[in-house]
């Protein structure tokens, strides 16, 4: 029986607010996994902490809900341990771009073959409405009652300069496009970053569904946009203040970490025999004599 998105559903009821953008992200992951013919056993979703971090519990697959900001190193460890798994890391903008920013930059440049989906709502939801590194200047939150005085991070531009091989941006309202981007991200041989504008209907009254519909530029509507041209990608991002959706950049030339790490096994390490032979052992001992 072929796999359908229903195979990736479980009976857990998300604790997200009605209307939360994260529902669409969940559905898009389920659909993308089914469209690619993955099985629940072969998919591992590793998530961070925050409203969006709960996503790993809402999808019928292997899932690991870790600690705040550390979804990426856990996910990279999972992939390095079993390269046959499809590994998706997921979390919010606070998780990935504040507390976990160090890991995000280094995961991008390390280029291990996993897909990172960020549910970006420009606010801290679970802690009840504080500013995030993606909040615009002047944005009023519980922690910035007079308006934020810090600049928001230009995350897509940052990914490009960090050496990203797959950079895309989606929007929770466009389920079909988002599903397609996630499919492409999973298929990409290397690290794929997909930032999703996933509105918080409770705490962000500025960056709403309607606001994004008004401001987002679809890259498909830009004539001759070439997602393999890094300079053009950067120019386009800067021209539109990062408010674009679609596949921004993909580099198919650069090899993934697993493919270039010296000696790294072609077989999943988790499946290999770990017992040393006596000869191997004696050789190791001999080196110190």
């Amino acid at each position, binding site marked *: 029986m072929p796999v359908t998105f229903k195979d990736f559903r479980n009976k857990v009821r998300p604790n997200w607010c009605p209307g939360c953008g994260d529902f669409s992200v969940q559905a898009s992951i389920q659909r993308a996994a089914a469209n690619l013919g993955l099985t629940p056993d072969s998919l591992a979703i590793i998530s961070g902490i925050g409203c969006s971090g709960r996503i790993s519990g809402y999808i019928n697959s292997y899932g690991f809900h870790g*600690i705040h900001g550390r979804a990426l190193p856990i996910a990279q460890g999972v992939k390095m341990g*079993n390269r046959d798994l499809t590994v998706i890391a997921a979390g919010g903008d606070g998780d990935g771009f504040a507390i976990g920013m160090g890991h995000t930059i280094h995961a991008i440049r390390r280029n291990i073959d996993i897909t990172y989906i960020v549910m970006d709502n420009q606010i801290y939801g679970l802690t009840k409405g504080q500013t995030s590194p993606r909040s615009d200047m002047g944005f009023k939150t519980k922690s910035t009652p007079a308006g934020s005085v810090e600049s928001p991070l230009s995350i897509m531009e940052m990914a490009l300069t960090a050496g990203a091989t797959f950079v895309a941006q989606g929007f929770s309202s466009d389920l079909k496009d988002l599903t397609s981007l996630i499919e492409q991200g999973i298929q990409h041989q290397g690290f794929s970053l997909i930032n999703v504008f996933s509105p918080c209907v409770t705490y962000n009254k500025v960056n709403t569904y309607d606001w994004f519909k008004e401001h987002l530029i679809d890259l498909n509507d830009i004539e001759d946009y070439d997602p393999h041209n890094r300079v053009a990608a950067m120019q386009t991002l800067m021209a539109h203040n990062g408010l674009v959706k679609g596949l921004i950049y993909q580099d198919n030339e650069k090899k993934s970490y697993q493919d270039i790490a010296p000696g790294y096994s072609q077989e999943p390490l988790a499946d290999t025999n770990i017992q040393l032979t006596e000869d191997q052992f004696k050789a190791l001992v001999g080196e*110190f004599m």
Partner: protein
Amino acid sequence: MINQLSWKVGGQQGEGIESTGEIFAKALYRLGYHLYGYRHFSSRIKGGHTNNKIRVSTEKIRSVSDDLDILVAFDQETIDVNFEELRQGGIIIADEKFKPVNPDDTKAKLCVVPFTKIATELGTSLMKNMVAVGASSAALGIPLENYHPIVKEIFGRKGDKVVESNIQAIEKGAEYFNREAGGPIDDFTLAPGDGKQRMYMIGNDAIAMGAIAAGVRIMSAYPITPASEIMEYLIDKLPKFGGTVIQTEDEIAAATMAIGANYSGVRAFTASAGPGLSLMAESIGLAGMTETPLVVVDTQRGGPSTGLPTKQEQSDIMAMIYGTHGEIPKVVMAPSTVEEAFYDMVEAFNIAEEYQCPVILLSDLQLSLGKQSVDPFDYNRIEIRRGKLMNESLPEIDKNEGFKRYENTPDGISPRTLPGMKNGLHHVTGVEHAETGKPSETADNRKVQMDKRLRKLRHLKFETPVHIDAKHERPDLLLIGIGSTRGAIEEAMMRLENEGVSVNHAHIRLLHPFPAEEMKPLIEKARHVVVIEQNATGQLAGLVKLNVGGRDKISSVLKYDGNPFKPAEVYKECKGVVSHASHV
């Protein structure tokens, strides 16, 4: 003929002090002598005084010596800093180049040898180390042909000419010394070694080799003194077994990546020192809560903060036991010798998988970096046990329930499946969770799962939780130690015994859960208990009092100046405890 002596070489960091000691040591351990080394170094690359002290003996030794017989000096600072350590009749062999001066209150003789000049005449001043090795060997009367194979091993790939001139440098150094001193010095003539072949390695080598023997395939780590050698060894070795070392952006990534890899079914670990362990505290809690096996090595150095990064200390004891928020099952092991470091490392992975919890292997700088001779490790002692890791085909599960990864079993340990396994699907979270791993905050579930996790270690099997040397039924003194102080305590004990003090020794090998049952009778039967440790607040003594009692008869011997305990220091302090007590 003597049975042991101490030799030290010193100079500026980056001057080849390390390699001088290395070559000299190689000749000696291959003759079947037991060696124990100590490196004094600073947190910089070039410049600054550094020295390498090697103790040579016909018997097994596990400590630095109290004094020094021979000091090889490449600069005046070496003499000024170290001459007080030389015993009466000791010698300083110094390079003519810096016009060495023997201090007024010296006990040692000065023998000047033109290290640099001889080396330069042979082609390059770089070979001054070899000249020094030659002079040292002449003092001890070590036949120079022992160096031929060693020089070939080191310089063989640079061609015969380089090999030849290095051998000549050794010979010229010896010749010059013999001319000056009139041949080998009687006081320094060692009784022959037993000729047995041993390994010569630092504790970090043993820990790293232990990881390979345990079947490790991934190490994620961030460089730090004094742990980096573990990483360096594995960078060389793991690719040969299909594995890899990933140098992470920080220690948080190192620990969490290792957790991810262990979750996927690979044996993975990380190694660091105090600052790194502080950053890993939350991750260690995650491993405890999610019951993911995790091994972390802590090579203790001087704290707090950056502290004394290149110096000996044992001040992470409490942090390793308690260093995460909340309550988790955790095992802290403390090897005290290089052999134990190797076998413990294998066992750390077995325990981590059998009990599905974090295991910390606690080393200290002197154990991690002190180079010593050890009997070759035994292949037959290596055993791999993976506990309740499922590998058979599993019965079909209800999709909406999932596999009971956190099943409430009598021993608290639940069957473990890995991502990729059919019918093993489950959720993992650091949030309190029910048997299938789904978050649950109900009071009943909380109690069930907390009890289940903490129950796991109630019946922890650990072969030697305390190394006990108890010859006396009711001794005057019980000495308690941990980690690399083992040798110093053993030697102090011997001296006290020779003076008629009856002494037992207990060295803690399993720090947590604390081996209270093993320790209780030892403490009860001793008149006085002295806890010897390298920190300022008596952390181990505190643990003994907390877990066993005996507050009124326990005293502490502490050292926290950055240097390892010498046997004489332990002896003197313990002697003080006995004589003070007898006068009260």
